[in-house]
């Protein structure tokens, strides 16, 4: 895979995710779609297995670095590295596992897998933060609300993937997903 193309696309996806979140949010519910998850699904549908897993993991790591949790006692925000990285990795692994069973270039596949991936991301992050709630007094987190928001956002992400997914699929030659040309080894795994 061409990692430069992935980096540029991920940069765009993160920029849109952070910038358009308010505009795409449903009311003040916190329910908003994820551009990053759609990118993750496109990559996991087409890239070699290890490449897809690494790309998913890196996307999750960056999501961890942009998600803040405010400690209610001190009013200071902090990041937690891991929950989104693991969630994205599981989402990527699930797509990789399921891709043999689906038509990769179908919009319906994109919609279905985007929902599954975003829902898994929501479930994993909620589960990990819920475990930490048991012993971390500095964590402000409402598991039920977060899970509800996560699943509703997954449905919204599936809707977004119907629009963004085909665009990314159309640009997939840029990613050189299946190149074996030794001249391109420096940019491919």
């Amino acid at each position, binding site marked *: 895979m061409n990692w430069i193309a992935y980096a540029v696309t991920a*940069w765009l996806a993160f920029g849109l995710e952070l*910038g358009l979140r308010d505009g795409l949010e449903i009311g003040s519910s916190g329910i908003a779609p994820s551009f990053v998850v759609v990118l993750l699904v496109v990559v996991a549908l087409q890239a070699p297995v290890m490449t897809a897993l690494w790309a998913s993991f890196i996307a999750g790591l960056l999501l961890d670095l942009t998600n803040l949790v405010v400690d209610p006692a001190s009013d*200071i*925000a902090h*990041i937690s590295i891991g929950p989104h990285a693991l969630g994205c990795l599981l989402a990527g692994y699930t797509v990789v596992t399921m891709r043999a069973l689906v038509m990769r270039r179908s919009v319906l596949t994109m919609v279905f897998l985007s929902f599954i991936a975003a829902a898994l991301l929501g479930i994993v992050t909620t589960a990990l933060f819920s475990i930490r709630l048991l012993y971390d007094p500095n964590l402000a987190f409402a598991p039920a609300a977060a899970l509800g928001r996560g699943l509703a956002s997954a449905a919204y992400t599936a809707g977004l993937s119907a629009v963004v997914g085909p665009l990314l699929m159309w640009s997939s030659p840029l990613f050189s997903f299946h190149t074996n040309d030794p001249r391109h080894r420096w940019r491919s795994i």
Partner: protein
Amino acid sequence: MPRGSVTPKRLLALAVLACVISALLPSRFTRPLTGLADPVQLLFAPISFPASEVSRTLRPSRQPDLGLDPQDLDRLIDERNTYQQRWLQSQGQIAELRAQLRDLQEGRALAPAVEFTDLSAPVIGATPALQDGILTIRAGSADGVVVRDTIAVARGVHLVGRVVRVGRRTSSAQTITAMHRGRTQEWIDGLVFVGPEGPAFACQLQAIGDDRLEGDLASDATGVEVGQVVRLNDPQWPEWAQMLIVGRIESIRPKEGAPGRELITVRPELELERLRHIVLRMPDETSVSGGSP
């Protein structure tokens, strides 16, 4: 393959193990890593900022319903609000100085005066799904922003929230309407002003979601009506945040199980999560030391 060599698969397994440990560590151990958020926010700012502008153009912030809309009138109202806030602050300072004078006469020291500075900064994005109501602002410690003591203000007098993370070039502020998710709820003390010259009554509010705050009104409050302004009067907030507008009363109803007590719902006049620019009000570097953990 030689035994013990590093393969992408093994490296990924190690990274997953590190993430599992990091994800389950209490936040006091992971707090030092928060500094990594700043370069990442800066990295995405060239896209997130214009996207944010587009987003706020498509869904602009709700403006106060003034009945009239000429720009000059807006400016004059802003100025009036600013001077009104300063007048109220000076009233509070006069009362405080009188009290300090009494204290001094009793042999106690005067507290040093605190100055503040304003910095206008653009909102470049919002934090993703985990916790809402956190605005990413393009100003950081290099601009003098400090955590907790810096507050976010809109249109001169509207309290937006408090800075909860500071990086070198970016910072994050949590809005007052978002301080509700989690096990603990943050209470905000305020004053309801009954008319321009009328008395003010205390209230204690907490965010309830849906961009609103709700809480008890003082038991001796009379003449409180829908539409009246609630201002901040909370010692937990910095001095320069006092008397800023929290919002207007949207509804009043009797409190269940507490005869004679009333519950008020307050909505900020602006949609805090959809602001394009905010003013960061922070301590003057020369006048304050400490205050931030």
